[in-house]
């Protein structure tokens, strides 16, 4: 617990003193004290479940602390509801979006700040004000679009704009970059910079230590609900932060031998998908994946990667084209579903684990057989043999270090990282010939990331074919033997690992095609 500056002279923007919070048996915050200065960007890091979101929700009045005091600009304050926080000039962008999806952007901005009982005139006024804000910060948001029609990145911008519109002097950002593309991240950082110049303070939560290093002035580390360290960013490095978060020495690098690709196990030719609204979401997608290689698919979320995974895994019909699975051709009219895919030796870790890969209400052991409940070795006659299922689950949990080791705990009570490990364990357990993986480490802390990466590489080394979709360029670069880049439903380029650099992929992600042969040296 390194020193908070001892002299009192720089008046703090916000001081959280001795905050304590429990959720039933979970002690989310333990006597946390955290201060940050005006005109500064303060980072907050910690493993999954360390209590970061809880702490900030308390500052925002969304939760009430069991104990502790809050001071804003030196004055003790009583924050019981978000309304109190808003009045004190505190704004928050939540980790899970707080948007009304059926509303337009403008309506979302207006909510709670309508400026009069009738919307008409207020709406016009708000439009002008928001426009001014957009210009000032270079944030572009279509005000009359329905939120659910917008890509997540834009939704994130709406959230930020909402906080700015409400006049936040102190802006809390809870993992805002998880869904942003690299250029969007850069843009966000420019905004944060401008806020700091205006004398406002920003509190930034992120799992990406690179970002911490890039923009923050100071950074606090939370572990198991406690503040365990605080650094001046300029005086520390990623390794030190990682070690403080986990509480021991960690390795941030994956070791990996060159790939030895074998036969083509999975391929797609000219696959097209049109969604329910008639929009083409996948256009003439073609690819091959060989045994013993990891093919990475890079791209900003929402550019057809989800559809690609869904088509290949049998969850979605496609309009035209063929998919070839271990030599077997599958057309738009072939009977092919997720169960069929699994029978043919294809496993799938989907992008959105909470929506697809586990059932939150089920106990862990029931989630641990999702997709495999028809397996002969799990049933006895008509009966699903729960004893065998439990044994199986325990072995999965042990192999992948899922904590707590309790197969009867409700799935939703496991932390995100542990849920992800459970899904990985389930899908890798049957030694699939082909593994489709989407966003394997989204929202997962660095300890778990390294583990998951090692598992993927070892599967590859056992001669399996892996298709990896990730919005994290670092992840793509660290794992892939070959990189495909997607933009607007198309596969716009392909690079061998050796030639894949951040900037080349970045330009391709933005939709600027380059001929595969054209060699350019990265700056």
């Amino acid at each position, binding site marked *: 617990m390194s020193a908070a500056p001892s002299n009192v002279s720089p008046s703090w923007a916000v001081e959280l003193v001795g905050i304590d919070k429990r959720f039933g048996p979970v002690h989310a915050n333990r006597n946390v004290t955290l201060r940050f200065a005006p005109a500064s960007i303060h980072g907050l890091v910690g493993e999954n479940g360390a209590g970061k979101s809880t702490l900030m929700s308390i500052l*925002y009045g*969304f*939760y009430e602390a069991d104990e502790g005091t809050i001071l804003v600009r030196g004055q003790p304050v009583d924050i019981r*509801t*978000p*309304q*109190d*926080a*808003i*009045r004190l000039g505190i704004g*928050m962008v*939540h980790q*899970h979006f*707080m*948007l*009304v*999806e*059926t*509303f337009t952007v403008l*309506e*979302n901005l*207006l*909510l*709670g*700040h*309508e400026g*009069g*009982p*009738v*919307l*008409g005139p*207020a709406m016009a006024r708000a439009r002008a004000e928001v426009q001014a804000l957009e210009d000032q910060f270079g944030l572009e948001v279509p005000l009359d679009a329905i939120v659910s029609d917008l890509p997540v990145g834009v939704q994130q911008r709406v959230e930020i704009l909402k906080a700015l519109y409400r006049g936040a002097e102190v802006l809390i950002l809870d993992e805002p970059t998880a869904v942003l593309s690299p250029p969007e991240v850069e843009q966000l950082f420019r905004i944060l910079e401008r806020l700091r110049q205006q004398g406002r303070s920003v509190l930034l939560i992120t799992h990406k230590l690179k970002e911490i290093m890039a923009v923050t002035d100071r950074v606090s580390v939370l572990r198991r609900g406690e503040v365990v360290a605080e650094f001046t960013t300029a005086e520390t490095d990623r390794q030190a932060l990682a070690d403080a978060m986990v509480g021991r020495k960690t390795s941030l690098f994956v070791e990996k031998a060159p790939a030895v690709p074998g036969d083509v196990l999975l391929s797609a030719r000219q696959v097209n998908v049109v969604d329910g609204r008639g929009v083409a979401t996948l256009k003439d997608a073609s690819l091959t994946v060989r045994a013993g290689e990891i093919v990475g698919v890079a791209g900003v979320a929402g550019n057809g990667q989800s559809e690609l995974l869904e088509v290949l895994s049998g969850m979605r019909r496609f309009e035209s084209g063929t998919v070839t699975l271990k030599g077997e051709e599958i057309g738009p009219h072939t009977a092919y579903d997720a169960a069929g895919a699994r029978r043919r030796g294809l496993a799938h870790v989907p992008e959105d684990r909470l929506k697809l890969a586990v059932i939150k209400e089920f106990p862990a052991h029931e989630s641990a057989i999702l997709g495999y409940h028809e397996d002969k070795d799990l049933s006895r006659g008509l009966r699903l043999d729960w004893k065998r299922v439990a044994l199986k689950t325990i072995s999965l949990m042990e192999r992948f270090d899922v904590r707590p080791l309790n197969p009867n705990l409700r799935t939703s009570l496991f932390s995100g990282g542990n849920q992800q490990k459970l899904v990985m364990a389930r899908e890798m357990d049957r030694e699939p010939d082909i593994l489709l993986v989407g966003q394997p480490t989204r929202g997962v802390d660095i300890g778990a990331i390294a583990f998951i990466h090692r598992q993927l590489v070892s599967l590859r080394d056992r001669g399996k074919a892996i298709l990896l979709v990730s919005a994290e360029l670092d992840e793509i670069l660290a794992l892939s033997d070959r990189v495909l880049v997607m933009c607007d439903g198309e596969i716009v380029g392909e690079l061998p690992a050796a030639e894949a650099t951040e900037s080349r992929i970045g330009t391709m992600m933005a939709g600027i095609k380059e001929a595969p042969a054209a060699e350019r040296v990265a700056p």
Partner: protein
Amino acid sequence: MDFLLSLLSLLDSTLRLATPLLLAALAGFYSERAGVVDIGLEGKMLVAAFAAAAAAAMTGSAWAGLGAGILASLLLALLHGFACITHRGNQVVSGVALNIVALGLTAVLGNAWFQMGGRTPNLPAGARFGEITLPLAEGLRGVPLLGPLYYELVSGHNILVYLALAAVPLTFWVAYRTRFGLRLRAVGENPAAVDTAGISVTALRYQAVLIAGLLCGIAGAYLSTAQGAGFQTNMTAGKGFLALAALILGKWKPVPTLFACLLFAFADALQTRLQGVRLPGIGEVPVQLIEALPYLLTVLLLAGFVGKAIPPKASGRPYVKDR
């Protein structure tokens, strides 16, 4: 001319029958748009019908009846709110329970107060909402087409019918043009967004539930003091459920809901006129088939044309700050 008159009479009857459905469906609109499922429209209408008839019988004033009806319905609405909002109870169970309580209680109180088997005395003209002849109706009656249209269809209803019709644009305005409406629709979709915007979810939902109570109160009073002349046990006879169906058919939007109500009422009015009609080749259509017509129609419409109705996302779920 004869055809015109019978058509007008059909439409006239449609309006009368649509009124309670419309009021109740709009009540459901407010409640469900705020995220509180309301199976209890039926029960609220029933207590209101009883209270209105009882008060009108005792005071001789239809307006006193209306006031009593609204009050009774509000009390039931508060109870629903207490169970579902304050105590986060299951909204469907609460609605079912309140329907049953309303069914029993109105009969018990009716028996205790009037000793007429749960009925209230027949209301004299003064204790009911009479028909209003709109200005110029008599004078314009002779004008071809428009005259009868105005006289037969537009004029000559009681004030609650006009009130119900006026409630549709009013509701539209409230829901889509006011601050309250914006918040109401938001809390039914994503209460957490409302909460983090610094607005009380609980207060908002209580307001919505109470508005539902108010509208059901008017609907109930209409049944016993305008359309009818006294209260009978279970006189709502499923209208609350039909109103709910209209709300869903109208996809939780005020204007389409109006059309759904009119459709149900039209089918209902039509079926009284179709009884005994012979169709070429088929012969006399069984009464029961005609009677089932509104329901069959609804199913066909739902299956064929309306498509998927997407309820307010948070409806049915109590709000808990949770991940």
